[in-house]
Structures are given as C-alpha cells and as structure tokens.
C-alpha cells in the first residue's frame, strides 16, 4: 500500500536536529518505507541526518510518501507529530 500526504512544518525552529530525532524515532516503529520530499530533495524518515538535511523551516510543506503494510498508520502518526510541533512549545 502506498500513501501520500502533505505535511506542514509549524514549529518555530523547523526541522532541526531534535525534531529530526523525533521523526526518525517514530518512523522506525513502522515497517513501511517512509520518505519526505521537498523540492528535489528526498529524505529517508528513518534517518536523523537525512531528515535534518532537508533544512525545512517553519512554513515549509513536505510530501510524505509511505509504502508498506502499515503505511496508512505511519502517515497518520507522522501527521500527528508534525501537528504537535514535535513536542515543542512554539
């Protein structure tokens, strides 16, 4: 199964290291392959470095592509994490 979804970065600092860590932690819980696409860059959601390299600032929109049995759950969980600002206050 393949799921695509647009996610907006709404926390103040953007996808900095700590946020990337949260993303990779969550992604690793799923069997599905999860990628983020921003412009021409593609990042593996399970790799902290890869996600941080996207340099996504507040307001950026990423395309999430998840493929695998639990793709749907993965996409939803990821959307929640973005919405929760990765647990940051602002």
């Amino acid at each position: 199964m393949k799921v695509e979804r647009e996610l907006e970065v709404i926390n103040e600092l953007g996808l900095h290291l700590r946020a990337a860590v949260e993303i990779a932690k969550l992604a690793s819980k799923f069997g599905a392959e999860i990628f983020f696409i921003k412009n021409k860059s593609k990042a593996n959601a399970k790799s902290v470095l890869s996600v941080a390299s996207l340099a996504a600032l507040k307001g950026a929109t990423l395309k999430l592509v998840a493929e695998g049995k639990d793709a749907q759950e993965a996409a939803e969980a990821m959307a929640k994490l973005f919405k929760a600002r990765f647990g940051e206050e602002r």
Partner: protein
Amino acid sequence: MKKNLVLKGLPGSPGIAWGPAYLLDPLVFDIPRYSVEPSWVESEIVRFRNAVGESKKQLTEVQVQLEKEEGSKDLIVIIGTHKAILEDDRLLEEIESFIRAERANAEWAVKEIFDKHMRFFNKIKDEYLRERKRDLEQISKRLIQNTMGIEARPKIEIGDDEQVIVVAHDLAPADLAHLDKRKVVGIATDVGGEASHFAILARALGIPAVVGIKYATRETRSGDTVILDGFLGSIVINPDESTLERLRWRKSRYEAHRKELFDLRSYPAVTKDGHEANIEFPEEIPSMIDHGVKTIALFRSEYLLLTYGRLPTEEEHFKLYSEILRSVAPNYAIIRTLDVGSDKFAEIFGIALEANPALGLRAIRLCLKRREIFRTQIRALLRASVHGNLKIMFPMISTLDEVIEAKGVIEEAKAELDREGIPYSKDIKVGIMVEVPSAVAIADILARHVDFMSIGTNDLIQYALAIDRTNERVSYLFRPLDPAILRMVKTVVDAGHSAKIEVAMCGEMAGDPLYTMLLIGFLIDELSMTVPNTLRVKKIIRESTIEEAKEIANRALTFDKAMDVEKFILEEVNRRFPDELAELSSASSAKELFNA
C-alpha cells in the same frame, strides 16, 4: 607575554567577565588514511562499530551525570540528539559501505562520510540549521577519537577556589557538561556562531561567551588574564591593572547599558540579511532624534551569492532588491554592486586564485571584465527601482574610467529596458565607494561624475598604509586615527561638498562612538553602521553641538602622530561621555584605549 591584545569574535552569550585563562587542549591529531587488506575489512568494521558503541556509552554517562545537576535539561536533550545520530542506521551503513568499497580504514571512512554531510549543511541558508554542521563535526571527532583509542574527554582540572575563563577551539555540548559551572565565569572559542549549540547553552546557563574568535587558542596562554565582553563579542588578553580596576567598579553600570544594546540584536530582519542601518545628519543635529534608523545605507549584494552558492539569475536579483526597496520606501536604500574577488566566491565566478586578491581582479574591476554578470545585476536593480527609492553604489573605484564605464552599463541597460517596454525609476542616484588612495587623490574629479560618495574606511586604511590584512605582523599599522587617514577623509569630504554632493562613511570607524564627534566635525553627511551601534552613536550625537565637533576635528588635524591624535580624541570623548565610553566599547576603540 602579550599585553592588551584585543581579539574580535561574535557575541555568544551576554555578560562581562574576567579572570585567568584556562586553555583547553585543542586535541589536534592527524587522521590516518590507508587501505586495508581485503581480509581485514571486516575487522575495520568491527573497530568502527565498537567506536560507535563507546561513543554512545560516553554520551550516556555524561547525561547521567547531568541528571544530578540543576538546569541542565537542555544540555541533556542536545546530547541525546548526538546519540541519535550515532544510532542513524543509514549513516552507519553508509560508513560501512565506504569501508568495504574503498577498503578504507575506519577513521578515514568516518571523516569522509561526515565531511560529505557537513558540506551539505554548509549550503543551508538558515543560520540556525546551518550551525548544525558543528554538531556533526563534534560527533565525528568523538567517533574518530574512539576509533583511534584517544581519550575523548578533555582533561579539566580547575583549582577549587579558582574562577577561570575557558578558552577552547570548540566546545561540544558534552564538553560543556564536564565543566564545573561554578568555576567558569566566561568562555571563548575559536569557532562557532551565535546559533551554535554551545552558545545557546551558554546563554541558558548564564555564562558570558564569545565565539568565532579564530585565534583565541593561538594567542592565549593558560594563566593570562582575559577580559571577555559577551555583548559585543571581543576579548582582551592581559589588560593592564588600571584598566581592570576601572572595569571592576563600572561593571554593573556597563552591563545595564550593554543589555540595552544586546536586546536590539533580537531584530533579525535588520541584521541577518546583511542590512545596515544608517543615521543621517541634516544641518541640525538635534533633529535627527526623530530620524532614527529609517534607511539602508549599505546593502551588500554578495549576500545573494552566499545564499545561492552560484550566480543568481536576474529574477533572483530582482526579487530581493524589490523586497529591500519596498521595506524602507519612501526612504532610500543604497545597494552596492557585487564586491567580490578571488579570495571570496572565486569558484562562482570561475576566476583563478591570485597571490594577492586584495590588489587583484575584484569588485568593479571584475564586474567590468565579466560584463554579462554585471549587466544581469544592473538590469535587476533598474527593474526593482520602481518599488522604492534606489541608489546604486560601485565598490573599489580607482580611476574615472571605471566610473564612466560602469555608468555606461547602466545606460545600456536602460536603453534595453526601454526597448522591451519595462519600466524603471527615472531618478536613480549613482555613487561610488572611496576606498582606494587614488580615488582620494582625484576625489574632486570623481565627484563631478557621481551623485554621492562613501568613504570605506576598512579598505582605505589598509590600502593607504599598505597593510596586508592577512599578515598579522603589520596589523599594528591599522589605526583609523593616523594623520594620513584624517587628511584623506577631509580631502574627500571637501571635494564632495565643493561639487555639492553628499559624502558618507561606512566601515567600522563610522559605527564606533569613539570617532563620532570627530566625524561629525568633518561634516560627513551620513554615517553607516550596524544597528547595534546606532544607539550609542545616536546618544553622542544628541549630546553634542556641531561647533564643538568642528573644533575637535580641526584640532585633530594638527597632530603629527597617530598616537597623539588617539590620546587627544580619547581625552575629549572621555571627558564628555565618561559612562558611554566604557572600556570595551568595541574592539577597535578598546585597542586605542589600552594603548593610550
């Protein structure tokens, strides 16, 4: 022993501190690079994995230790991110594949792959995210040390009753954890920016810090007395006793004042984009109270090259310039055409490296040679001009021919736009930077061909006194108050005013309160400076009269030696503004203060 040596860096964490320097070993080591026998490849991988395990263990130990300390929550989180990178399977696989493919030793593979990722971070526009390359550097260093079996933890033994200024090449968050905060009153580092994790943590811990000093570890010896100004980002090594004494009793007053200035820093739109604010001087000084900072006196268009890492397109130029012009309209913005040479952005321009870039094919010379690049910028400037009040400034003019030729390019571009039916403002002022001695000598001639002139003191001092900026052995010659410089400034201002055009000044001298009265006295029409300096300069201007400023300027011209001028100016300013001109006002004035 170095005396009163002033080193400039960037403000990392506010506050003033002094004490004996405690130098942290920079731990410089060579990273070995060799190919291993095919049968050894797997054992290299094991060595690498062990190092990863060891590094994670060390970081965990630091975290555990920190749990007991109050206020170290941020630090624990940041160290956690370092650990998470060491758990990034993709990264680890990448390194292992490199070991296999190249039959590389583990250290080499770690360095190679981390360097690759760091190069990527270098290109990131956002300062905060870009600084994360420092984290990668620190992680890679720890990993390599552990691969090589080098003790990764810096040895820190500060005496029980000692309070020191720590001087280090770089401080990883984990290093910071090893420091006993009660014994550290300030921190100075060679590398790093305001957004480095270390600076953020220092701010959270309330330890004054200066980062990016470049030569801090080279110039400081353990035990040297160091004064550190975390507001303005400078340190002074071995100040004399009387200076220290004065600082002690003035510290509280000074800090309150500096706090006011530091808070100004939190307006990112003004400083981050390389915008500089300016202060204008109409005939009557008091009226400038109302003026405040409204115009942009110098926008360095090289910013675009930094942003894109390549030559920007006409549209990219256009977009930025339109934005800048709109932001200050109806006030003007002066945009300076590309000021680059073979020392900066050589790759982008595809120019060969030069033995002496300061005297080479740079700035307007380069633009006139690479006409298509220049034309693109000029076209974009003209198109953007309808969005506000644009002034164009050419850097590093040394002959009249260059002015005529550069203005010719503007005229050609206008004709082109006319043919294409694209509008542009009919009233664009064109000016030049006066920063080469030949331009000073013919300032009267140049003034007849331009709408304004701006004296660029940093370069002018360097060129006039023949100082190689990269050669520290001649840096003592860099004195803004050298009689040669004062005469040149006066020559340019007089030439401009005879031709009925305005003369401005940019460069550090313009923004240093020590020189404000002198410069007003020379009747300079406009001083351009960074925003944090405006408050202090403003204060001096508001409390001076033009008559006394003129008197100071005239008397300054009567001295034969730089030292005598410095003494005179210092006395005059100190007498009028004893509080304002605190010891560490800025590194340049501090230097004069300490020399006086």
